[in-house]
């Protein structure tokens, strides 16, 4: 019973919150649930979900990744600059983008695991290096995406935006690797308890580096999707994704202090945040108010989580007290 409550408390809560949000939309702003509105929301939610999946992997290892802006921009810059609108270079460019993201992520991981640098500082540093690289490589001006990829990004598969389908593909692959392979399960074990994992003979450092590398791949993939969707992405296009990615992880229920994480819950949180944005927009509130409402939602979500946890601890304590009282024959 308690275990069930706990599981709802950590990763299930966001489902309930998202359902409530859609119900709220139905009541106060039905226009935000119209087909066109949902089709406009889904690509952004999908891109955020892919990026936030990377942040989830890092959070599981008790880290936080501030290099999201650099990594996402890196993916976007390679996929636009390498082909320079030549269709035959499209696939190699996508590949280079992802590999570059993985490599940069591995750099993060090495700084954290081997260099013993605090994740905040390490990723702050790599972000600066990446931003420098992007500035130098792009010479400061953006390039349009290959038209083929741009057309694909706005196409639909059975009425669902192609980007959302691609995102579901990426997320299920990551989820499958984590939940259904030995390496993935070990990765979770290292995150849940590094000391126990070390005692069990796992090389924790390798899993931390792999986590950051996979996260880098997710950011770069998000950057590729973003570039395809925006057609001509700004060179620092990833900058607006740092805070939402952290917000999605936190709302999804993965603790930033490490432990178990859920990519699915993070993805639902990404949908939640995007739909919240749509709702606020359709009510007619300007962008700044949108920011404030998002921030307040995160604060309330966190406060609720903490209080529900507190109630749980109190309940367990009283249950324990009852047992002790019965065993000793008191009261």
């Amino acid at each position, binding site marked *: 019973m308690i275990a069930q409550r706990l599981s709802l408390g950590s990763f299930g809560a966001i489902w309930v919150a998202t359902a409530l949000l859609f119900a709220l939309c139905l009541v106060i702003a039905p226009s935000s649930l119209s087909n066109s509105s949902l089709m406009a929301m889904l690509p952004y939610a999908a891109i955020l979900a892919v990026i936030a999946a990377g942040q989830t992997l890092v959070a599981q290892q008790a880290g*936080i990744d*501030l290099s999201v802006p650099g990594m996402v921009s890196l993916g976007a810059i390679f996929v636009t600059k390498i082909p320079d609108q030549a269709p035959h270079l499209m696939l190699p460019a996508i590949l280079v983008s992802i590999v570059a993201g993985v490599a940069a992520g591995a750099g993060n991981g090495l*700084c954290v695991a081997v*260099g*013993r*640098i*605090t994740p*905040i*500082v*390490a990723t*702050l*540093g*790599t*972000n*600066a*290096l990446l*931003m*420098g*690289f992007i*500035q*130098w490589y792009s010479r*400061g001006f953006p390039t349009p995406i290959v038209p083929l990829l741009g057309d694909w990004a706005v196409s639909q598969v059975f009425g669902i935006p192609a980007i959302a389908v691609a995102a579901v593909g990426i997320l299920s692959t990551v989820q499958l690797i984590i939940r259904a392979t030995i390496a993935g399960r070990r990765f979770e074990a290292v995150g849940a308890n590094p000391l126990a994992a070390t005692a069990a003979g796992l090389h924790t450092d390798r899993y931390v580096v792999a986590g950051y590398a996979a996260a880098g791949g997710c950011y770069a993939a998000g950057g590729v999707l973003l570039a395809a969707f925006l057609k001509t992405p700004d060179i620092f296009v990833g900058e607006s994704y740092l*805070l939402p990615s*952290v*917000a999605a992880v*936190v709302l999804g229920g993965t603790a*930033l*202090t490490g432990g178990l994480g859920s990519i699915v819950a993070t993805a639902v949180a990404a949908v939640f945040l995007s739909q919240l944005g749509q709702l606020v927009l359709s009510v007619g509130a*300007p*962008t*700044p*108010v*949108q*920011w*404030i409402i*998002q*921030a*307040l939602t*995160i*604060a309330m979500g*966190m*406060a609720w989580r*903490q*209080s529900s946890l507190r109630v749980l601890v109190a309940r367990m304590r009283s249950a324990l007290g009852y047992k002790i009282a019965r065993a000793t024959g008191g009261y």
Partner: protein
Amino acid sequence: MLTLLTPLIFIALGQMIVLLSAGIDLSVGPVAGLTAVVCSFFLVEPVGAGDIVSGVGLALLASLAVGILNWCLIRKTLVTPVIATLVTFMCIRGSSLWLRSIPGGLTDGRVCDWLAARVGPVPIGFIVAALAALALEVLLRRTRWGLCLRAVGSSEINARKAGVSIELTYLGAYSSCALLSFAGGLMLMAQIGIGDPGAGVNYTLTSITAVVLGGASLFGGRGSFIGAFMGAMLIQQVMNVTTFIRLNSAWQFWLIGILIIAAALLYSGLRAGRRQGTVA
């Protein structure tokens, strides 16, 4: 260069206080920006004494409120400092954008001149910042406040056992950080001279870079204000050098990135070495 440097010093000093208590404040940049935006409504030409008092006073109160809000979120709802100050970061940025959706409100030239006044070649603001760093360093090493701050940052449980009033120490740390960011915001306003909602945001990351370069530990309890001051100087100097020797603007990013990673590696290596030394 000294004028450009002053806001960063103030904000880095604030960040240092919070870092000493084993926290982190991401909202420093937006607080500085909000100060400039709020003042831009009052300090327009022609400016009177009443405008200055109400504008600066209001910005001061707003900053203090942010500091207290940060403390409340972190200590009362038990949210981690990163998330709590991320929330205030978004709230303040939103508020700044709400107040001024586009840059506006030219600051009266006299106010800018007054804030940028110099003694010989050195701006007064810079002297104040340097003195503040020195004073905070002395306070940290010589007074009960400094001792409490370092104790709480090193180990909250032990500090509690030793009779430190934990909550007051945290409250003091976050509100003084907000007030120093406010001071940085005033200096920033004197430079940009207009209420720009996007101004100051970058100071969050630069201030963390500055204190890390100064040798502070993100785990709390360790660090020096003189170090943060020097870190800020180094960053500004690097920024200047790249423009003067006409390096590609990418080098600004690269040098900062290399500096922060090298500094972190060096310090973590030094500490590991020292720890092994004491064991052996």
